[in-house]
């Protein structure tokens, strides 16, 4: 163990002995996400740096406190990228926070989510044990997939030390097209295109405009542009559009109204909730700005076959995440207890009691 790892392990053991919560924190860019922030801050930013980047292996191994921007710059220099296009939500975002929050950007529906790219992890559990799972290879079925389990667990199961992530080459060519249509037709169109061998890498719909990004070989993008039609955006406008969605910096995300994220089957009908909406991920992610009560938003999400997250909102007392059915809740409690028997790691950030 390095000095930092050693000192964190001691800090965890002391916290466990005295049952005082620890609040694991990188740059704090996602402090708004999830439920309560409780405990003494364990700042991960001192544990920083790319450990190994083998462009020909399509793998990067990186310490959890590394700024996400630094990692992306290192990949870019080799013509590579994080396939899941993660949101930063601020200049100080870290790799550990990115994995712990498990949030993916516009490319998610075509390339996969954070969890799909996770290959390995080293972590400290709630006993202060240093544990390594997975590895730096693409295929690995030795033992349970704890590396993916860490993704999106919001620091409730362990303190990430380093992660190994599969990376992708940058697409050779990209183009963004725009079409005017209503939400219903846009969702149908996204699904129809999704069923064809087209290089669609992102979709969005808002206020009567469907926007589609194509990424891939030059010939494939050119052929798809000719086939789909629509108005092609300039490179600059295209970049601004997708960046605005990824970082939630565009107008839809401004203001104070609660922001709900509904994750539903891509073919789900309209949410029917009051307020404005923005659709992504080929129809599978629906953002809604609504003052409607949590119970009715969640009931609607369930009815559509999905779930609803109170992504940004002043009052998280209704629970940030969709309640779990009893059977799964029990498994969650047991998993939490197995990694963190004293309940000191980010308690209550994901669910009350976890």
């Amino acid at each position, binding site marked *: 163990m390095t000095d930092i790892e050693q000192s964190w392990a001691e800090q965890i053991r002391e916290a466990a002995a005295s049952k005082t919560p620890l609040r694991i924190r990188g740059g704090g860019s996602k402090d708004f996400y999830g439920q309560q922030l409780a405990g003494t801050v364990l700042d991960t930013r001192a544990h920083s740096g790319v450990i190994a980047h083998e462009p020909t292996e399509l793998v990067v191994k990186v310490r959890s406190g590394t700024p996400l921007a630094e990692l992306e710059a290192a990949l870019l220099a080799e*013509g590579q990228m994080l396939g899941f296009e993660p949101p930063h939500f601020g200049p100080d975002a870290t790799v550990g926070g990115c994995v712990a929050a498990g949030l993916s950007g516009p490319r998610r529906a075509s390339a996969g989510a954070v969890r799909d790219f996770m290959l390995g992890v080293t972590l400290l559990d709630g006993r202060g*044990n*240093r544990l390594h799972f997975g590895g730096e290879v693409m295929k690995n079925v030795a033992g*349970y*997939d704890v590396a993916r389990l860490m993704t999106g667990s919001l620091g409730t199961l362990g303190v990430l030390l380093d992660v190994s992530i599969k990376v992708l080459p940058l697409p050779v060519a990209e183009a963004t097209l725009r079409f005017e249509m209503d939400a219903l037709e846009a969702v149908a169109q996204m699904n129809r295109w999704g*069923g064809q061998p087209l290089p669609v890498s992102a979709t969005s719909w808002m206020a009567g405009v469907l926007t589609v990004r194509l990424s891939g070989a*030059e010939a494939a993008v050119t052929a798809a542009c000719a086939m789909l039609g629509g108005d092609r955006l300039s490179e600059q406008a295209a970049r601004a559009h997708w960046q605005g969605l990824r970082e939630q910096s565009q107008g839809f995300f401004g203001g104070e109204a609660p922001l709900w994220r509904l994750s539903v089957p891509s073919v789900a009908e309209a949410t029917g909730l009051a307020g404005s909406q923005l659709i992504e991920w080929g129809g599978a992610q629906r953002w809604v700005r609504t003052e409607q009560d949590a119970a009715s938003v969640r009931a609607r999400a369930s009815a559509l076959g999905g779930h609803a997250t109170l992504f940004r909102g002043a009052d998280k007392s209704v629970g940030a995440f969709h309640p779990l059915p009893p059977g799964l809740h029990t498994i969650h409690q047991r998993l939490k207890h197995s990694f963190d028997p004293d309940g000191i790691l980010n308690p209550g950030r994901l669910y009350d009691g976890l």
Partner: protein
Amino acid sequence: MTAATASLPENALREVDYSQVDVARLIGELRAVLPPVALLHDSEDMRPYECDGLSIYRQVPLAVVLPGTEAEVAAVLKICHAAGVPVVARGAGTGLSGGALPHAHGVLLSLARMNKILNIDPLARTAIVQPGVRNLRISEEVAPHGLYYAPDPSSQIACSIGGNVAENAGGVHCLKYGLTVHNVLRIRGVTIDGEVVEIGNHGLDAPGYDLLALMHGSEGMLAVVTEITVKLTPKPQFAQCVLAAFDDVIKAGEAVAAVIAAGIIPAGLEMMDQPATAAVESFVHAGYPLDAAAILLCESDGTPEEVAEEIQRMCAVLESHGATEVRISRDEAERMRFWAGRKAAFPAAGRISADYYCMDGTIPRKRLGEMLTAIQGMEKTYNLRCINVFHAGDGNMHPLILFDANVPGELERAEEFGAAILDLSVDLGGTITGEHGVGIEKINQMCRQFNVAERQTFFRVKAAFDPKGLLNPGKAIPSMNRCAEFGRMHVQGGQVPHPEIERF
């Protein structure tokens, strides 16, 4: 018990003795919840279930049950849970690591009768299937919609989708299209106490911990899967394959790295060494160059324009990295011929040798040369031949160790040879299993790849789903006792692992 082991389930410490089962009572209870056709307990009837694809391990269980519905699965599990009887789930039995080897004092639960495709939604690109559905059948059924199910393990004609989930199966196209875990949206399953759980959903994510990822590759140790929603992929319009020959395996390995470095993700990227090409050539006549030390198969798929562009880039890289010959498939028939050889590697090994033992280590691609050189040395050490086929794109190697079980000592040497390859895989920064699973076969090597605290974590994860440890006990995760014994044996050397297990 020390403080460190205080919270561990008993099976984490040692193998639990389940021999005190009241068999007559168990059979009676099972009979009450299953139709007659779904319960076998005569040892001759159970013989077909005594092993999976790793036939050197065989064991007849107490009973074989073949439930036809989720309710029957739940009823069986409730009975076994109450009686403290182990349950081993089985799909098509094509697994290569003994994961579905029955337990001597347990029930074997075959999902073969749950083989219906429940729903196909072409617009959403999903299919809901029961676990006993064969992998290839999904692609066949959805073909009219221009879709297919992407993961294609080489046993796809026979293997079941439930087994694919249990092993997180891959295939030759997984570098581009992902493993089973990337292509499943939702699972319904039954935990050992008979409770039905739904993990994942028909959207792209689910709230809470990623239990869906945990279920993949869990070798039937967390829950019994009863329903699976798979993601379907649009069929590429066109595919073409490049066959490149090299006069040196290291050069071939470097060419693989160069293709990836050029920013190309081939649809498939496979390598075979000379003994492997020789073995398949005499069998399927794929037209492979027999004088090459290694050949690469590099595939591109997509629109015709896209494929033309990518094939050109691939050829340029391969030629500049020392390929002595580069052939591009001229038509679909030739492309299929190129692949026929690769896909026939296992049966071809069976033709040139009485028996063969297939390994499954994964290593970082850049260590390939070291591994192949070491394997050549091991061939001399163990006096056995080994032919190498390799999912080069993702570093997953399948050395096939050739032996004759009728020659005294050869099976033992083959197993030692295999263990040496797995040890080296770990040392080179890889893993003991890429896609076949640990099962019973590689359980001792788990002691090498994971330390005590990591193995304890696995047992605790299992206990979160299965507190009594009744689902597939003794597989995948070795008890602390077993690792201690293995450590001692390893030091003494020269002994056969698992002397308690019958050999055939």
